[in-house]
């Protein structure tokens, strides 16, 4: 829940900052607006647990040092990791400083500074895990990681099945709960989120050797030179080392990386400041993307039908309970309906996914989404059924009674079929919107169609083409439904006439 508030704040933050800063910024020094995702962003940049309105993190301190070296004022712009490159391109901030890896894909859209940090990847498993000793053992397991990171690209290349998360907390939590078998993540995050967790332990030594760089817009060559010079400077004067040591991130690899910048001054001669590091590449391929989209579309369909089944059966029970049950049941049903209609479905999903495991009930993401959406839509369906039941004249029931039918029989054979006919058009419409609402499942890392689009598009930059493709997928599935809804609606209107003709023909 905290995360949602944070996301909302994040959206509004640039505007608020802008409004607040404009009048004062006119005569002040130039700003360096830097973007990063602070949700689950430790130890890079994150909301200080002690003062949640303040951000802390080693990258925050580093950017402030860099800005000082550039004689600028650092201004933090919170953003989303998934869309960080496009946000930079749109000019929401000037640089990305968010543990960004200089991949070839990204090189097509943005500039990179020189590296400022060498990172490794650490595999983490549950304490009692005996089968997994290294990444090699994970080929038939599910490994969690952040979407669109070195770790995810590495596993994609190695053919290891992985699950992409939006933040490290969710990934490690799912590992604890047994929803996944291991987590592979950059060492800084692993250190902060998993190293001290008594239920988890590292599996094997860190692997891979990658670099973090500052990302800049294409064309900002001058700013890039400025940033590079600033990086050199904070390395040379020991500021960066001090910051990294403070955050326990200093190691031999950093010493090696910084040696170039440092000896430079000492010896006064030009040395190549190249340090060896590896770059993961995602090698985006359309065939694979199409396959993943198709799989995601199937998940979407499964979610929709499963959730609708729950919504229909539970909704009917709620409607009957609410209108015909004893007083306590009516109260219970009303409370249920008001609760689920009065709170956002996103909050309900997050509660089911992260809250229920505390009570000992940990469902996998897809099941959580299916059940959550079902429970939510049941509240809405119940009102459709209640209205439909109330639309049947009381005389129908009395006519059935006068023919000797029991209340149950009268309800089942006389009232329900008539109410169902009234309820079909609104139900079909609800189904279409449920179908689209499955996209909220991305919040709990379910790989349905909307999540797939977000991740594939962010990884490839193909927002337009993939967007058209995904829309086509949605339409392919929802148009027949909408068509069915319209036809049923028409039938309800003209049903009498149609049936009259049919029976005329039959007679």
């Amino acid at each position: 829940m905290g995360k949602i508030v944070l996301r909302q704040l994040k959206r509004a933050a640039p505007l608020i900052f802008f409004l607040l800063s404009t009048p004062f910024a006119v005569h002040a020094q130039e700003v360096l607006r830097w973007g990063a995702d602070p949700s689950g962003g430790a130890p890079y940049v994150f909301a200080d647990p002690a003062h949640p309105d303040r951000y802390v993190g080693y990258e925050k301190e580093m950017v402030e040092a860099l800005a000082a070296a550039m004689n600028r004022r650092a201004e933090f712009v919170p953003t989303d990791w998934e869309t960080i490159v496009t946000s930079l391109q749109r000019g929401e901030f000037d640089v990305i400083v968010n543990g960004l890896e200089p991949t070839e894909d990204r090189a097509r859209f943005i500039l990179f500074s020189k590296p400022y940090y060498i990172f490794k990847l650490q595999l983490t498993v549950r304490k009692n895990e005996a089968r997994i000793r290294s990444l090699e053992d994970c080929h038939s397991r599910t490994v969690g990681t952040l979407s669109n990171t070195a770790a995810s690209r590495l596993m994609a290349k190695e053919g290891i099945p992985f699950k992409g998360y939006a933040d490290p907390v969710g990934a490690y939590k799912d590992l604890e709960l047994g929803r996944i078998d291991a987590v592979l993540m950059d060492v800084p995050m692993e250190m902060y989120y998993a190293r001290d967790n008594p239920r988890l332990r590292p599996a094997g030594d860190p692997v891979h050797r990658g670099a973090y760089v500052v990302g800049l817009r294409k064309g900002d060559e001058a700013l890039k030179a400025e940033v590079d010079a600033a990086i050199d400077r904070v390395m040379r004067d020991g500021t960066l080392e001090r910051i990294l040591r403070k955050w326990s991130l200093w190691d031999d690899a950093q010493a090696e990386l910084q040696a170039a910048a440092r000896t430079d001054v000492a010896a006064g001669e030009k040395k190549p400041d190249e340090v060896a590091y590896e770059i993961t590449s995602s090698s985006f391929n359309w065939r694979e993307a199409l396959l993943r989209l198709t799989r995601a579309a199937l998940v979407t369909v499964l979610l929709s039908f499963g959730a609708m089944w729950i919504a229909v059966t539970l909704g009917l029970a709620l409607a009957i309970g609410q209108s015909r049950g004893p007083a306590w049941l009516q109260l219970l049903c009303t409370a249920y309906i008001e609760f689920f209609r009065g709170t956002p479905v996103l909050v309900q999903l997050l509660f089911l996914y992260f809250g229920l495991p505390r009570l000992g009930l940990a469902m996998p993401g897809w099941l959580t989404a299916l059940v959550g959406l079902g429970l939510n839509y049941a509240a809405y369906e119940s009102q459709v059924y209640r209205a439909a039941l109330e639309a049947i004249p009381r005389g129908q029931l009395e006519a059935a009674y006068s023919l000797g039918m029991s209340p149950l029989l009268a309800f089942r054979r006389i009232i329900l079929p008539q109410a169902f006919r009234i309820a079909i058009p609104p139900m079909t419409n609800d189904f279409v919107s449920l179908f689209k609402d499955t996209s909220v499942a991305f919040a709990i890392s379910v790989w349905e169609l909307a999540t797939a689009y977000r991740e594939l598009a962010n990884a490839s930059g193909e927002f337009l083409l993939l967007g058209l493709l995904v829309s086509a997928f949605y339409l392919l599935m929802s148009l027949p439904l909408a068509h069915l809804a319209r036809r049923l609606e028409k039938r309800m209107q003209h049903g009498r006439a149609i049936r009259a003709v049919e029976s005329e023909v039959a007679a």
Partner: protein
Amino acid sequence: MIRVEGLGKSVGGARILRGVSFRVEPRTVLGIMGASGSGKTTLLRCLNGLERVTEGAVECEDVRLEAGLAEKEYQRRVKHLRRRVGMVFQHLYLFPHLSVLANITEAPVQVLKKPRAEAEQLAHELLEAVGLKQAAPRYPESLSGGEQQRVAIVRALAMRPEVLLFDEPTSALDPRRSFELVAVLRRFVGQGQTMVIVSHSIKFLEGVADFLLYMEGGEAVEFGAKERVLREPRDPRTRDFLRQTD
């Protein structure tokens, strides 16, 4: 055989019926007349257990509904009662989602557990008797008012009730249709059916009824053989009513 003894019905503080007593012998037709709001419909609903009596009792064959029965016992008796007493409502309430045939066979099959073929056989016979042989597969909405009326009668008759209650059967019919209905109903009476018919049409009741009951203000003012009540009413209120309606 219907016996009504000191029947009273109050809703809230209002006494809708008070001290109503009469009998209906088997194979006869009782016509109930009275001004609007005199309690005719309420009386019929009491006879069918759709309303609970608050004073006195109604008895049909061996099923007796009296005031102050415990809910469980009341429901048990009503269940028996409704197998013996059928009702045709003023607004008919045919089941719109079922064909004419299914409207008629639904209760015999579901309640009496008759084999479907047997129930359909009977339904076809009854439909033929009221001149609606062709209507079986049609849906109620496609029928005229008079045809719907006859389907409602057949639907009630298919349960083979000892008594059939009618509320305003002629309100939707033109004079000719009402006249035809008299013939249809008399034929079933001839076959042993007992009926209670509420109507505003004295002419219709004159044609169909054997006995007449005049109601006013929730009371049974006059009860007797049709000819006697129409020709020489004893109570001045009945006399006034008959004069006004002629």
